[in-house]
């Protein structure tokens, strides 16, 4: 049988036999027009079901790791596991922002009550733990809770898309799932690091400022937050950071607010880890202006407000890293940025302040594994 291709003749024909033409060209065409989207739904569902399965595996592993970590040397395992499962379902309801005035205070209040409740429940559950271990238990439970949450949201959209055969919902989920898997991956690496109390990438701010604080007297200034006074190039440097070596970010907002009131400094320098863009190098240091601090915004708001009301310039120094690097063990490139950031701090202080001025230097981030 000879195949004759007639292209551009008004009708696509592969052979001269009309029956075979129908079978090869028109039938599949009709099927694709009628059932094309179903086919795509089927393909996406297949793809997603694999990813959701993987996510479930990761979530279950994180739960098991949490159980192993917190029940280490504890007799009443059953009861503890039951409590852990209720912890995993903990939620936080964000305040209404229809009338945004004062919403930061409400947010602050809710987050503080959440922290206090979590801490006291862990204390109740494991009364004999030392502070470092209790904190690591708290962090590990928090990671497992986030994992559970990511998994449940993904599963929700997957099931809704599948039940309604909704191509758009499934396609949207497929588009964002690489980013969610990145988060999941970061969380599972974070679990290992937080269990061993190793410094994470985000600890670079507290590490840089903590090094300047060594051998100076430390004072408490807010919950889990300390400050020390030191001399840099003849200026009074007030160093603020969360109190290590437990994994906490402290309350830099409250601390800076109070110190600005008390000391009336002429400059505020903030050092933090920041997410790098694709193509940038990990451990790269950059300078800028503005409050370098993440989180849900309570601390940032307080610092910006205090700085604005007292007309204090805010300088920022950031160390770049990815989300995975920020919450898993600190890499060499990040750790080695300490000296270059110290040089920048000295240069800024020399150039932007006069002798006997006061400067507040804040090391923002989670201070896990770092002593001040």
């Amino acid at each position, binding site marked *: 049988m000879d195949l004759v291709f007639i292209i551009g003749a008004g009708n696509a024909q592969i052979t001269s036999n009309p029956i075979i033409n129908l079978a090869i060209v028109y039938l599949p065409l009709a099927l694709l027009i009628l059932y094309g989207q179903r086919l795509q739904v089927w393909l996406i569902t297949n793809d997603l079901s694999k990813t959701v399965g993987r996510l479930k595996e990761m979530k279950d592993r994180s739960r098991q790791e949490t159980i192993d970590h917190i029940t280490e040397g504890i007799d009443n395992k059953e009861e503890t596991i039951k409590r852990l499962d209720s912890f995993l379902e903990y939620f936080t309801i964000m305040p209404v922002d229809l009338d945004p005035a004062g919403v930061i205070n409400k947010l602050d209040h809710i987050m503080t009550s959440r922290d206090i409740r979590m801490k006291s429940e862990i204390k109740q559950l494991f009364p004999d733990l030392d502070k470092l271990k209790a904190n690591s238990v708290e962090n590990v439970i928090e990671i497992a809770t986030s994992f559970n949450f990511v998994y449940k949201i993904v599963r929700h959209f997957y099931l809704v898309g599948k039940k309604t055969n909704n191509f758009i919902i499934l396609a949207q989920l497929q588009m964002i799932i690489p980013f969610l898997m*990145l988060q999941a991956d970061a969380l599972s690496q974070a679990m290992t690091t937080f269990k061993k*109390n190793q*410094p994470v990438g985000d600890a670079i701010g507290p590490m840089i400022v903590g090094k300047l604080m*060594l051998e100076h007297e430390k004072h408490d200034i807010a919950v889990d937050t300390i400050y020390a006074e030191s001399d840099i190039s003849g200026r009074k440097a007030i160093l603020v950071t969360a109190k290590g070596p437990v994994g906490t970010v402290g309350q830099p907002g409250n601390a800076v607010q109070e110190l600005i009131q008390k000391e009336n400094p002429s400059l505020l320098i903030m050092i933090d880890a920041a997410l*790098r863009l694709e193509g940038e190098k990990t451990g790269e240091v950059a300078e800028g202006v503005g409050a370098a601090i*993440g989180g849900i915004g309570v601390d940032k708001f307080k610092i910006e407000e205090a700085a604005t009301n007292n007309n204090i310039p805010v300088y920022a120094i*950031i160390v770049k890293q990815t*989300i995975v690097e920020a919450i898993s063990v600190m*890499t060499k490139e990040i750790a080695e940025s300490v000296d270059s950031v110290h040089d920048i701090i000295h240069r800024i202080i020399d150039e932007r302040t006069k002798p006997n001025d006061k400067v507040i230097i804040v090391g923002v981030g989670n201070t896990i594994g770092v*002593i001040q």
Partner: protein
Amino acid sequence: MSLPIMGVPDKKRKKLTVYTIEECINCKKPTKREFKDGDLVHKILDKCKDCDNNIMISLIYGEEIKKN
């Protein structure tokens, strides 16, 4: 953390070994060893053999092992 910009996942996951760097606070001679449980950055360890000053953990970091 500032700048909440999402990246994309790396295809291959890096396997990191965690090291602890000890340094005498006076003669600054660094020694590198593998991380042990209980190691913390800026923790003071025993005395330096050369000058009797304190030895401190200066850094803890993860590094990719390069196969030659």
